[in-house]
């Protein structure tokens, strides 16, 4: 690891900047370009209307007309028979349902952030959707749902991606022909078409990815010209907002942030090496980017969640994921104030702290195996079967009958020996040396309800209370058990195991409620319990009462992030059409979206576009590797302006592709072909960058002809597979003929 000898590059213009053509024609002035730049870095920029194009996008009026034509073609391709099929397709099951929930303001939990779903909801709401359709199964026919306008949203964003790709490549200093090629390849990409025609989140995601990339390219062009102008700030802020929008659509947007983050780090590193930039100005550059590219996206992201919380104000199917405090904020879950002091004889409900399984519960059904005694479970809803009486276990006589014979209030502290009496069935919470029904491991014992009216019970009913910690705002609660404040463990007196529950469901005989066991090796969080409701006959009516504190926005936001993360990581079940990342660049297999009445919608790509883009990525990495090896052997390729220009261009797109693709290899969750689409967007741009390089020596007419041939081939490919995108009728022979790879599993 010898220190590498860095050849000093000329400091201005910084590396990474295409040296080829002066795109910003020098203005008449007494300063040359270098001096002007130096002056600008110091903040002494001349305040005049600039003569260079906005963000470096110098686009001729003819091109605008061309762009309009492309948008019209893209609209035709994406909107063609948008109303077919008129039944639920693939994940419309989920995202349609979420729109209904938003409109009904019923709380739900999803693994994706809210922006794209909010936009779909907005479309539905404006078309007067009432939220009454359940989107239950793929293939269910729509009734009274403005599904076309809901589908319009992803479709519109899908169309908007096309001109963005054109502008991005123009901003990256590619020729108009190249940019046109890119926009048409994206227009006729079957995968992007299929994905944007249904109520799915990927089309918004790709649009925002393209938007953020476009804005970033614009910002870089401004930055090369003159920093800290109003326009510089606008592009930078817009880039930040774009990043916020990507990451608020799907977490995959973090990869876009990483791409642009790497670009920023490179910019700052180059600036740091430019000794003419004093530290003060460098810090200004640094803070400007930190503010706009870190703080702004975070604020945007949080704002989306604020809207999310404001809309979903009522209790719904997602309650079970959230903590008790959180649920308390939802309409329909509020709880009356309850007495704070817990004492012997209190009638209580006991809540499991760590999982959202609910309350310690028992009911008149027995375990089918083990001891065959009465079941004890966790039950998420309020119910009289959740009520237990705390009884002094050291009392003489029959404590369950005489519990109210005690003089005064006896508080519960660490070390207090109690029994818990289930009020509805008059049985005691009991544990013994039987293996629990589901977690049949040595270190866990079964917990059951045992006893009968008039029976004192045995020693196996006795539990020691151990207060783990109290609420910081209520110092008393760490000394004795108080409602809501104290979190405690219950140690079984004879076996020393702790009352425990975990996210394991009992089978149907236990009504799929959560298993409760007594665990000798209990992890602390899963053995913590708290008292949620408390009533005592001897407490005076004016005794102190407590209730849940309303969590603030930040607490709710943070909790929801954690829930989303764990839910996301838990999506590990196999799906019939899931695939691993290694199969994506080769388009080995698609996804069956919908089959009905002998028609099919199957997500697959345009093979030509797909394979060519992969080839372009491979070609770039191979050539770049070769160039690095050559430079180590003394060849001076990297001093060739053309190599420098295309290396900067393709390098940026390659990093975009790699960062949107490789992280998926680390994910254990189920993955689908459509996760590759953002990477595909970069790969297509890269393909066009390579095209620009290969045709750079040709005459414009020849270049246009080659591009035309590629586009015609792409359209031919598109037309072969278009019945799968539109779900239009297809003959069996055509279907079988188009099965180019054995692994494409449509048509059976």
């Amino acid at each position, binding site marked *: 690891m010898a220190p590498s000898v860095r050849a000093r590059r000329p400091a201005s213009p910084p590396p990474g900047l295409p040296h080829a053509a002066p795109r910003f024609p020098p203005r008449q002035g007494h300063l040359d370009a270098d001096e002007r730049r130096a002056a600008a870095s110091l903040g002494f920029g001349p305040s005049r209307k600039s003569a260079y194009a906005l963000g470096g996008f110098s686009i001729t009026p003819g091109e605008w007309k061309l762009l309009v034509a492309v948008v019209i073609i893209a609209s035709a391709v994406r909107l063609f028979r948008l109303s077919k099929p008129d039944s639920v397709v693939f994940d419309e099951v989920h995202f349609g349902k979420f729109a209904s929930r938003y409109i009904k303001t019923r709380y739900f939990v999803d693994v994706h952030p809210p922006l794209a779903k909010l936009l779909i909801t907005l479309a539905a709401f404006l078309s007067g959707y009432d939220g009454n359709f359940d989107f239950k199964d793929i293939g269910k026919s729509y009734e009274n749902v403005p599904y076309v306008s809901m589908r319009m949203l992803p479709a519109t964003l899908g169309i908007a991606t096309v001109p963005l790709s054109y502008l991005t490549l123009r901003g990256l200093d590619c020729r108009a022909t190249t940019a046109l090629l890119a926009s048409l390849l994206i227009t006729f990409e079957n995968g992007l078409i299929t994905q944007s025609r249904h109520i799915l989140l990927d089309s918004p995601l790709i649009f925002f990815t393209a938007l953020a990339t476009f804005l970033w390219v614009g910002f870089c062009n401004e930055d090369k010209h003159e920093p800290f102008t109003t326009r510089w700030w606008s592009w930078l802020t817009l880039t930040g907002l774009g990043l916020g929008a990507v990451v608020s659509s799907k977490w995959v947007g973090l990869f876009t942030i990483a791409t642009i983050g790497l670009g920023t780090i490179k910019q700052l590193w180059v600036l*740091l090496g430019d000794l003419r930039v004093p530290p003060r100005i460098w810090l200004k550059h640094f803070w400007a980017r930190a503010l706009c590219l870190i703080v702004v996206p975070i604020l945007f992201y949080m704002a989306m969640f604020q809207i999310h919380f404001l809309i979903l104000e009522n209790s719904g199917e997602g309650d079970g994921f959230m903590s008790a405090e959180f649920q308390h904020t939802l309409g329909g879950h509020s709880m009356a104030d309850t007495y704070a002091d817990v004492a012997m004889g209190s009638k209580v409900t006991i809540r499991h702290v760590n999982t959202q399984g609910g309350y310690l519960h028992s009911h008149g059904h027995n375990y089918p195996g083990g001891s065959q005694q009465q079941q004890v479970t966790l039950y998420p809803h309020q119910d009289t079967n959740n009520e237990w009486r705390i009884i002094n276990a050291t009392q003489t006589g029959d404590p369950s009958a005489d519990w109210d014979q005690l003089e005064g209030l006896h508080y519960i502290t660490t070390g207090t020996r109690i029994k818990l009496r289930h009020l509805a069935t008059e049985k005691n919470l009991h544990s013994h040396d039987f293996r629990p029904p589901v977690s049949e491991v040595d270190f866990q014992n079964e917990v059951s309800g045992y006893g009968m009216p008039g029976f004192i019970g045995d020693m196996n009913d006795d539990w020691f209370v151990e207060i783990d910690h109290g609420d910081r705002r209520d110092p008393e609660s760490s000394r004795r058990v108080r409602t809501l404040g104290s979190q405690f463990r219950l140690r079984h007196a004879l076996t020393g195991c702790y009352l425990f529950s975990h996210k394991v469901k009992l089978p149907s005989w236990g009504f799929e409620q959560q298993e409760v066991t007594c665990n000798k090796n209990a992890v602390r969080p899963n053995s913590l319990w708290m008292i949620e409701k408390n009533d005592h006959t001897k407490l005076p009516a004016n005794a102190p009462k407590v209730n849940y504190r309303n969590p603030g926005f930040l607490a709710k936001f943070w909790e929801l992030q954690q829930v989303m993360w764990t839910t996301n990581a838990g999506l590990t079940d196999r799906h019939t059409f899931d695939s691993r990342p290694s199969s994506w660049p080769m388009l080995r297999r698609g996804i069956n979206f919908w089959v009905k009445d002998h028609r099919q919608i199957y997500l697959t790509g345009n093979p030509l576009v797909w394979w060519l883009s992969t080839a372009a990525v491979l070609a770039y990495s191979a050539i770049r590797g070769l160039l690095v090896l050559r430079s180590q052997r003394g060849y001076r390729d990297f001093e060739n302006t053309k190599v420098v220009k295309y290396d900067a261009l393709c390098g940026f797109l390659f990093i975009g592709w790699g960062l949107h693709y490789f992280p998926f290899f680390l994910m254990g969750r189920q993955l689908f072909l459509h996760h590759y689409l953002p990477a595909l967007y970069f790969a297509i741009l890269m393909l066009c960058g390579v095209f620009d390089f290969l045709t750079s020596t040709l005459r414009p007419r020849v270049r246009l002809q080659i591009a035309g041939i590629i586009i015609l081939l792409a359209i031919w490919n598109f037309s072969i597979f278009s019945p799968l995108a539109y779900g239009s009728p297809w003959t069996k022979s055509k279907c079988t003929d188009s099965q180019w790879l054995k692994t494409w599993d449509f048509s059976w």
Partner: protein
Amino acid sequence: MVTVGVLTAIAFALRFYKINHPDQVVFDEVHFGKFAAYYILREYYFDVHPPFAKLLFGFAGWFVGFDGHFSFENIGDNYTENHVPYVGMRALPAILGSLTVPVVYAIMKESGYGTVIAAFSASIVLFDNAHVAQSRLILLDATLVFFMSLTIYSYVRFRKLRYVSFSPEWWGWLLATGVFMACTWGSKVNGILTVLAIGAAVLVDLWDLLDIRQTGHTMDNFTRHFAARAFGLILVPLIVYLSFFWVHFAILVKSGPGDTFMSPQFQESLTGNDMLMNSHEIRYYDTITLMHKDTKVLLHSHAERYPLRYDDGRVSSQGQQVTGYGHADENNWWQVVPTKALPDTGRGRIVRHGDVIQLLHVNTQSYLLTHDVASPLMATNQEFTTWPKDDYSRYNETHFHLYVNGAHEGEALKTKSGHLRLVHAPTKVSLWTHREQLPDWAFKQQEVNGEKNPSDKGATWYVDEIISAEDGEDFLNRTSASTNKDPKPMNFFKKFAELQLLMLQHNAGLTASHPYASNPINWPFMLSGISFWTENADQKQIYFIGNIVGWWTCAVGLSVFIGIIGGDLLARRREEFPIPDPVRNRLWNSTGFFVLVWFVHYFPFFLMNRQLFLHHYLPSHVTSALVAGAVLHFLVSDTVNYPISKRGHFTKPKPREYAELGLKGPIIVGVFAVALFAAFVYIAPLTYGTPGLDGETVNAKRLLSSWTLHFAAKNT
């Protein structure tokens, strides 16, 4: 010399102190003791780790006279009562663990650090409770760490000879690196990380050799260097690694508990294997039972029908149920019916790979069938049912292709050994099952359905036994002429490839949660340890945890190093050069190498989904001790010992420099060693498992609240 002698002596003393305690099976001795016993009994077993370290244990056991008849069944089983010479077996890792200390010392000396600094690094390993605990028991990590440190040592020696390349000495250390690397890799799966670490360092080295700006770096020279390293660091280690497996297979020739993991072909190479003894050909019209390979249930059917409507509202065909059933039953009997004309007698009646067959359920006289109706539990898979024998309306839908895995065209299907898939001829789904019970209407039997994915592993079945032949002939002896009950030899490379693949799969499959498993982010700070062993009577326990002073020093050392490097990079970017060149080169090349090795041995664990334990950090801990020493040197001295590499013919002679530590160096190291020893002694009862501790003492020993010690007093 004196220093290293003293350090080694203390190392032996600390690792052999009360090595006979506890005289019970501790933690993973359950596994590795057992494996040693299998080597002695020569019975085949299966494990995720390569065999080198276990072979050493087997050898140690054999050497001290262990007869292999104790099975190490449970933690806490007594050795003395069962006459197991366990002290001899434990001595092996204790010796290797002790020898790690002088090797660490030598690495530091060879890397150009003074005696004081070398002693500093060595004492971090020497007084480490984690290393001591791990070395005193029959566990693989001591071997792993020892060979890993030897690999680093050899590579450092090799690097120092870079100006005299291709000299005999240079070749010697190159080959030593390769051989030790193979031993590390052969000890434990994660030894592969050592190979990767050295590989990364070699790549950097080769990259510099490619640099045309250095004199003498011709392409020819580069090719020779490349070839030498490919030979010494790829080919030689591979041969050594393979030879461990060769010995492994040569010893384990008898059938044992590992049989069932292996392919039928592999099993038939073991003496006394069930499959070898009881494999028969099947003929048409034989009645057979079909067993599912993964879940061990038999294909079953009974007269009850699927309910019209399931709980979720989907409907069924109301056909006869087909399920998986775990117990012997007449309803598991199926007759193999041909779909082609058969000769009256002879080998033409044998069922072969690729045949299209029907399966007749004997008790209900109906054929197995599947159709495009969703199965009871999985809407994506097809339902299986049966169809009456004499109703020909759905004849075609009862046809199944029979594919025997890995069979050639026309190979006969055999019971037990032939793993097969049944693929439905019209719809191409495979007969498949999974561990999901059907509801009460199917008596909680296992669901069987048709899986569309043709390569799914759950679609593998085999013929468990032949119940009877059609004409009542003695099916066991009809092929007696062709049977041969001797083990069938199998090519070593095939055996190796199969075993290696299985090891990787099972290693990745170890994902069940364990109460003492921990996340890698906790390791450098040793937030949680592992309870190895407890004894309730005397409140004794062995809790695997490191020396808090040593580990935290290492963590600080690493952070300081990253800080120095980061600061240096930033300063250079602004064209300021605060660190003199020799010192900077030492930081980058020597300390940087240690950090690289640390990183490669640590970071990959973040990517693994399997269960992870604190002891996986031990190799990284050793390298972090090296880093800590180097950083200490940087902090107390502005100079380095220089040059340390052997001078070649073309290298310019450079003025010799010596590092000046002054008085503060020895003082710091001395004070540190005392602190280290104090911390070691304080935790020692948890490391040696003796003496017993009362609750209050246990609480006092619990230095971090995240340690889960046993017998802690309840705080009131």
